[in-house]
């Protein structure tokens, strides 16, 4: 048996290669751990973060420290992580509103009358969202998308769900490519967005995209049927994760839950 693997080969970046932009190539322990272990560990860790009482500042500090250690082991540059945290900005805006418009007792901070309850809510939302996002970034940066899907499959996520995810991953570039070609075609014939009315053609384009995507779905199905597809995806080979990796993954969850437990016990 001959398996060709050339991990160091530069991957040709095509327009809209963003799906894989979450991944950062590396060979660290965090990269090498089986995807199913990482998925379970990430989920268990986030659960611990979410149930931790908001008053336990030290607990959140420990969670953050744990994530920083993982990032250091995986050699994820700070800039890389920060850039990927941009998705949190909308939540940030909502969180900042909370103390301004919250109810209950108010306190003065730098001349602003803020709701105490709102401040706690803001902290709670920010701390937990940030830690959750960082966990997802570490997972995504150290696991390739096909491996994530294999991991879900190994965790017995229904084949229909993993198939839907893998089709989405496979076709998002194709569909976005089609959309940007349509935009270029629109601009080439003089379309310019000057006001909200300029959005109308976009709405129509979206409609056209739905139809095109549906038609492509049909063609993909034909291609699948032509290669013997009869309703179920062929089961992929499940490679079990070594026990030592489960010990690491479950150990991380246990530690996080212990922190959460202690935090509650202190209340």
């Amino acid at each position, binding site marked *: *048996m*001959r*398996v*060709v*693997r*050339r*991990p160091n080969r530069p*991957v*040709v*970046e*095509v327009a809209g*290669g963003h*799906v*894989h932009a979450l991944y950062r190539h590396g060979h660290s322990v965090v990269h090498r751990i089986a995807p199913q272990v990482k998925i379970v560990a990430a989920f268990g860790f986030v659960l611990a973060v979410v149930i931790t009482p908001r008053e336990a500042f030290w607990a959140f500090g420990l969670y953050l420290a744990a994530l920083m250690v993982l990032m250091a082991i995986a050699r994820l540059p700070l800039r890389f992580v920060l850039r990927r945290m941009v998705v949190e900005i909308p939540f940030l805006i909502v969180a900042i509103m909370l103390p301004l418009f919250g109810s209950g007792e108010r306190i003065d901070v730098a001349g602003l009358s803020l709701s105490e309850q709102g401040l706690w809510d803001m902290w709670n939302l920010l701390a937990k969202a940030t830690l959750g996002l960082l966990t997802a970034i570490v997972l995504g940066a150290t696991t390739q*998308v*096909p491996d994530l*899907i294999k991991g879900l499959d190994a965790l017995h996520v229904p084949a229909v769900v993993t198939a839907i995810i*893998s*089709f989405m*991953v*496979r*076709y998002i*570039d*194709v569909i976005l490519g089609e959309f940007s070609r349509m935009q270029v075609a629109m601009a080439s014939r003089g379309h310019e967005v000057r006001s909200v009315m300029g959005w109308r053609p976009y709405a129509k384009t979206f409609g056209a995209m739905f139809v095109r995507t549906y038609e*492509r779905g049909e*063609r*993909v199905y*034909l*291609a*699948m*049927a*032509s*290669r*013997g*597809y*009869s309703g179920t995806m*062929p*089961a*992929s*080979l499940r490679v079990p994760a070594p026990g030592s990796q489960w010990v690491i993954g479950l150990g991380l969850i246990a530690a996080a839950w212990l922190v959460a437990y202690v935090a509650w016990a202190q209340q």
Partner: protein
Amino acid sequence: MTAPVIAVDGLGFAYPDGTAALDGIDLHVHRGERIALLGPNGAGKTTLVLHLNGIHMPQQGTIGVSGLRLDGDSVMEIRRRVGIVFQDPDDQLFMTTVREDVEFGPRNLGLTGDELSRRVDSALAAVEVDDLADRPPSHLSFGQKRRVAIAGVLAMDPEIIILDEPTSNLDPASRRELSATLQGLDVTQMIVTHDLLYALELCERTVILDRGAIVADGPTRELLADNDLLERHRLALPAGVRLE
């Protein structure tokens, strides 16, 4: 004499709205042949091709593949025997990596383990893309995608492969490489194309389909030299090219 790879007899097909797409098609393709299927847009080429592997079932007439008659029971085996390479490789490469995609067909046939990887490796090698195995299909050039799509079909170990417009969107170099690859494959082939010179280069025999019927079937050079015939069926050699 062995049974023809493809034996189509009296095939007729009409769409639900009553439009006749195919009308009394008789076509026999023998082992080792490489034939071109030509015809204007809307002639019924794709409809015919989708019959050959049982995506459409014959409403009239019969289809046999190496002696096996197409019906509800044999359709899966027919699909293994008849491999179709579709026009847009993005439709055909639906898995997340090249290797997984080429594995898709053989896995559906129940292959696993070493046998599966042997089959996949030899299919990838046959079209010279073995170094792309771990790439996502979206990161390949168009010519590479076309080759991987062919590998996916070869991995089914088909009796015939049918290529729908294999040269569309290929640059001249990829086009030439593809013709070398196709000439090197030891399998019966049918090439559906508008590219008459490609047909001439690769195929000794040509079948012309128009309005759902076969209007000509003969040596490619002869048919393409017949200007009246080409004109009648909305076919044309590139400007300035004439065959004697």
